[in-house]
C-alpha cells in the first residue's frame, strides 16, 4: 500500500539499520525489531552469536521512552509462541529482555510515616496462565492502582477486578497518618496472563497512586504444587467465616475448578493389571476407587466370591493412593490366588481424587451397567447385585439406583439422599433419609423415588452416565459429586431410586479431622448450591424426606 511503502521508504532513509534487526532468543524463536514493530518469530536457525540479543536491546530499544519500553516488554510476553513452545529457555530470555527494558520504579519501603505502601503476601500458580495473588496497598486517597508484572514481562492490573477486604492491621499501622482510612486495603484476585509464565521467580508488583507516586516491590515466588495451592486458596476462602460470597464466586470458583482440572489432568492411567480371566461380555462393571485402606479389598472379595451373581461382573479397582502400587500388586496377587474371583487393578501416574479415580476406572469398564462402589462397602448377604440389576431393568427411566446402606451397629447410613437447608442458611446440604435409625425402620423399608443417592453404591446405565457427563471433577476432595451426578440425571429426564431390598454395610470413616475438612466441605456445599440451588428448591418443595409410605 502506498502509504506503508512511503513510511517504509522514509524509515529506510532515516536509518538503514532500523529496517529489520533480528536476534536469537531461544531454540526456535527470534526477536525481530522492525521500525515500530517488535515481536517474537518462529525461526529455524537461531544459532546467532552470543551477545547479539543484548546488543540489539541496547542499540535499538533501550533508548525508547519508558512507556514504549513497557509496552514492548508486555507485548512480547503475550506472544502465542510462549503457549506453543512451552520453553523455559524462552521464558528466561524474556526475563532478561524485561530486565533490560523495563522502567524501574523506586522500591517501596513500608513505613508508618510514608502513606504509600504495598505488600504482596502470596502468589499461587493455579496453572501456567492464572495466578492467585493477595496482599494489601495503602496510599494517599485509596485511588491507587496495583499492577502485577510476570517474570516474562506480562502486565495485569488487579485493582478493579480484585476482591477487596478490610485489613485492620494496615489501618492500625498507618493510624498516625491523615488520609485514606475507610477503604478496604486488602486485595485478592485470580489474574489471567495472556500467555503462560514458567519461571519460578521474578514477579513484581507496582503501585501508582493518583498523586503521581509510583513504587514497586518484588513478590514472593509463586507456589506451584497444585495440592499446596489448593490448600492455600481454600484457607483464604475460609478465613473470614463460611465460604461463599463474592470472593468465592468471582475468584475462588474459577481458581479451584481449574486446579481440579489440573490435578485430574496430571493423573493418567499408568497400567492395568489383570487378575484371572476377565469376563468377555460382563453385564455389570463395578468400579471401586482405593485410597490408603487396602485391607478392605479382602473383605469385599470374600463376600463377592460367594455370590453367584459375580460370574457376570467386571470388577475394577482403581488405586488412587499411587504410592501403594507395589503393596497392592503383591496383595492383589495373593488374594486372587485364594478367592479366584477375577478383577483388574488400574494404576495411575498420580492421585486423581474420588471423581478422577472413578473416571479412569469407568474408562476401562466395558459393561452396559456401571456400579460405583466404595471400598468400605461390604454386602450384608449375596444377591444384592442381582436385586439391583433386576430393579434397574424393570423400571423405565431410572437414572441412578441406590441401596440401603448400614453402619456397623445396624443403623441406617443411607436410605436415599435429599437436600437440607439449615436454619437461616441459604446453602443446601446433602442429607441422608432416616440416618441413624434402625435398618428395619418401616419408612426405610420401601423403595421410592428420591432426589439423589450416594455414590458409595450406585447403579447407573453407562450411556445415561456418559450422556450427562458423569461425576463432576470440580469438587474438592470428594463430596457432592454424587448428588450433582444425580441432579444432572434428573435434569436429563431420568428418575433416581432408592432400593430397600439391596442391603450393604457402609463403614463410613469416623476418624477424619473435622476441622481439616471444614473449608473444603463448605466450599463444595457452596459450589453445589451455586450451580443447583434453584433446581433443588423446586425439587425439595415436592419431596418429603420423612414421608412414611407404609402409613395408610
Amino acid at each position, binding site marked *: 500500500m502506498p502509504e506503508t511503502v512511503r513510511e517504509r521508504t522514509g524509515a529506510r532513509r532515516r536509518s538503514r539499520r532500523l529496517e529489520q534487526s533480528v536476534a536469537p532468543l531461544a531454540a526456535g524463536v527470534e526477536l525481530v525489531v522492525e521500525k515500530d514493530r517488535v515481536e517474537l518469530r518462529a525461526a529455524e536457525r537461531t544459532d546467532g552469536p552470543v551477545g547479539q540479543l543484548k546488543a540489539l536491546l541496547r542499540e535499538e530499544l533501550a533508548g525508547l521512552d519508558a512507556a514504549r519500553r513497557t509496552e514492548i516488554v508486555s507485548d512480547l510476553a503475550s506472544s502465542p509462541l510462549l503457549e506453543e513452545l512451552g520453553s523455559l529457555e524462552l521464558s528466561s530470555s524474556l526475563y532478561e529482555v524485561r530486565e533490560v527494558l523495563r522502567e524501574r520504579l523506586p522500591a517501596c519501603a513500608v513505613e508508618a510515616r510514608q502513606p504509600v505502601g504495598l505488600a504482596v503476601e502470596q502468589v499461587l500458580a493455579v496453572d501456567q496462565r492464572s495466578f492467585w495473588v493477595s496482599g494489601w496497598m495503602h496510599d494517599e486517597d485509596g485511588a491507587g492502582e496495583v499492577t502485577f508484572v510476570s517474570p516474562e514481562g506480562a502486565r495485569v492490573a488487579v485493582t478493579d477486578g480484585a476482591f477487596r477486604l478490610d485489613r485492620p492491621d494496615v489501618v492500625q499501622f498507618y493510624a498516625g497518618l491523615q488520609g485514606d482510612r475507610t477503604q478496604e486495603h486488602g486485595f485478592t484476585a485470580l489474574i489471567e496472563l495472556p500467555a503462560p509464565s514458567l519461571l519460578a521467580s521474578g514477579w513484581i508488583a507496582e503501585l501508582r497512586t493518583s498523586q503521581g507516586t509510583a513504587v514497586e516491590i518484588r513478590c514472593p515466588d509463586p507456589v506451584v504444587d497444585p495440592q499446596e495451592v489448593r490448600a492455600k486458596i481454600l484457607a483464604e476462602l475460609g478465613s473470614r467465616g463460611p465460604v461463599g460470597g463474592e470472593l468465592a464466586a468471582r475468584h475462588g470458583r474459577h481458581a479451584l475448578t481449574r486446579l481440579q482440572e489440573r490435578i485430574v489432568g496430571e493423573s493418567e492411567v499408568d497400567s492395568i493389571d489383570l487378575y484371572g480371566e476377565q469376563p468377555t461380555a460382563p453385564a455389570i462393571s463395578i468400579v471401586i476407587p482405593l485410597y490408603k485402606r487396602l485391607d478392605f479389598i479382602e473383605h469385599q472379595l470374600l463376600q463377592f466370591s460367594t455370590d453367584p451373581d459375580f460370574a457376570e461382573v467386571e470388577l475394577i479397582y482403581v488405586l488412587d493412593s499411587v504410592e501403594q502400587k507395589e503393596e497392592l500388586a503383591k496383595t492383589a496377587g495373593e488374594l486372587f490366588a485364594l478367592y479366584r474371583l477375577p478383577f483388574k487393578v488400574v494404576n495411575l501416574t498420580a492421585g486423581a481424587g474420588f471423581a478422577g479415580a472413578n473416571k479412569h476406572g469407568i474408562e476401562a469398564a466395558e459393561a452396559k451397567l456401571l456400579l460405583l462402589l466404595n471400598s468400605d462397602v461390604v454386602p450384608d448377604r449375596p444377591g444384592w447385585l442381582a436385586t439391583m440389576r433386576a430393579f434397574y431393568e424393570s423400571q423405565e427411566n431410572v437414572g441412578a439406583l441406590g441401596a440401603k446402606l448400614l*453402619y456397623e*451397629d*445396624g*443403623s441406617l*447410613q443411607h436410605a436415599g439422599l435429599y437436600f*437440607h437447608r*439449615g*436454619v437461616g442458611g441459604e446453602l443446601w446440604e446433602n*442429607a*441422608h433419609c*432416616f*440416618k*441413624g*435409625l*434402625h*435398618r*428395619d*425402620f418401616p*419408612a426405610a423399608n420401601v423403595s421410592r423415588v428420591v432426589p439423589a443417592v450416594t455414590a458409595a453404591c450406585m447403579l447407573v446405565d453407562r450411556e445415561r452416565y456418559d450422556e450427562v457427563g458423569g461425576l463432576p471433577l470440580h469438587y474438592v476432595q470428594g463430596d457432592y459429586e454424587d448428588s450433582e451426578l444425580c441432579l444432572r440425571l434428573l435434569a436429563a429426564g431420568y428418575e433416581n431410586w432408592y432400593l430397600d431390598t439391596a442391603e450393604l454395610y457402609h463403614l*463410613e*470413616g*469416623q476418624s477424619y479431622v473435622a476441622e481439616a475438612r471444614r473449608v473444603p466441605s463448605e466450599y463444595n456445599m457452596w459450589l453445589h448450591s451455586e450451580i443447583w440451588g434453584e433446581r433443588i428448591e423446586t425439587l425439595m418443595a415436592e419431596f418429603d*424426606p*420423612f414421608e*412414611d409410605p407404609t402409613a*395408610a
Partner: protein
Amino acid sequence: MSDLRVLYVVHNHPTLHPGGAEAYSLELYEAMREQPGVEPILMARIGSNVARRRVAHPGTPFMSVNGDPNQHFIFTETDHFDFFTLTSRDKSLYSRHLTDFLLAQRPDVVHLQHTHFIGLDLLSQIRRVLPEAAIVYTLHEFLPICHHHGQMVRTFGDELCPEASPRRCNECFPELSPQSFFLRERFVKGHFANVDRFLAPSAQLMDKYLRWGIAPERIEVEEYGRLTPSRRAPDPRQTKSPTNIGFFGQLSHFKGAEVMMEAMAQLDPEAEAHLWLHGANLDLQTEEFQEEFAQLREQLRGRVTFRGPYEHHELPNLMADLHWVLIPSIWWENSPLVIQEAFFHRRPIITSDVGGMAEKVRDGVDGLHFRVGDPYSLARTIEQATANPRLWRSLRDGIRDPYPMDAHVSRLMDLYGELLEQREEVAVNA
C-alpha cells in the same frame, strides 16, 4: 386403629452406665412392648461422661442400641450442655436432628424421663413439630428447681432447703446473681409450659413442685412401677440377732456416706452390728471425700465391709444374709428404688426421717426412721434394731409389696389416652 406410639426419652441407658431412673425407664419400655396396641420407642442419651469411647456416626447423633429397632442412642457433647439453664448450647440438636427424629418417628405420646444432656429445648420443639402429641414428664429430682445438683440442700452446712427463690439461690451461689436465677426459673418454666402432665413418684416431690408453681391439675403422684424380679431373696439364715445391715447405691456425700460411717464408729462397742457396703461410683467423688472415706474404712475394719459395685441381678444373693437395708441420704430423695427392692425381698429399712424416705418407709411399721444427717441418732437406731429380733420380725411382717409394673402401665395407658383426648380438643378448638 394403628398402634399408639410412645417415645420415652432418658438421659442414659443401663447398657452404658448403671442408674435408677435409667433402669426404671428401660423396664417401663420393655413392659410397654408387651402391651397390645402400643409401640414404645426409647431414646437414650450417650456421651463422653457415660461412654468410654466417643462414638458417633458422622452427620447424625442417632445410633441404634443393641440391634433393637425401637431403641436409639442420641449422642450429645457433654460440653455443649449448659448446666445452669439445663439445655444444649448447640441449637441444631433441636432445629435439625431432633426435629428429623420426631418427624420420622411421629410418636403420639412423648414421655420424658429425664432431659439432662439432651436439654429442655426438646420440650418446645416437640410441641412445634408435633402439636397433637401428648407430653408427659416424670420428675426424678429437683434439677428444674435447684441448681445445687437438684438436691434442694443448701451449699453451706448441708441444710435441707424447702424452697427456691432468686434470693435464696443467690445465697447458695454468690457468683450467680438473683437476676440470673430469675431468668433460669422463667426459662425452665417456659419450656415446661409444653408439658401436659408431670408425674411425681413421691408426694413430697410433688409438693415441692406445687410450691414452685406447677399448677395442681398438671401434676400427679405416680410411683415407679417395677418388674417383679425372677426370685425373692430367702430369709436370713439366722434371725435371732438381726445384726447385718446393707447399703446399696452410690457412696457419695448426699447419699449420707459419712453419716453412716460416723454412726458405725459411734456404736456401743458391745453392740453387734455389721455394715455391708454395696457401693458404686466412689471413683467419681472428690479426692477429699475419697480420702476421708478410706480413713473411716480403715478405722472400722471389724464393723464395715466394702464389697464394691454390684449388678442388679445379684440382689437376691446379696440380700440373703442381710437383715436391714440402710438409706441414710442427707437430701430429700425422690422415691429411692432401693426401697422397692428391699421391700420386695422383705428387708425392713432404716432411713432418714425426711422426704421420699420418710414417705415410703413407715416408722415402726416396715422400717425405722432416724434424724437426718445425725450419726448419733443413727447409731442409737442401729443399736436398737440389731438387738431386737422381735422388732425385726414385726417390721418384716409389716412390709407390703412394691407398686407392680402392670398397675403402673395400666395407669399410664389411661393417662396417655386422657391426654390425647385433651390435645385433640385443643386442636379442634384452635
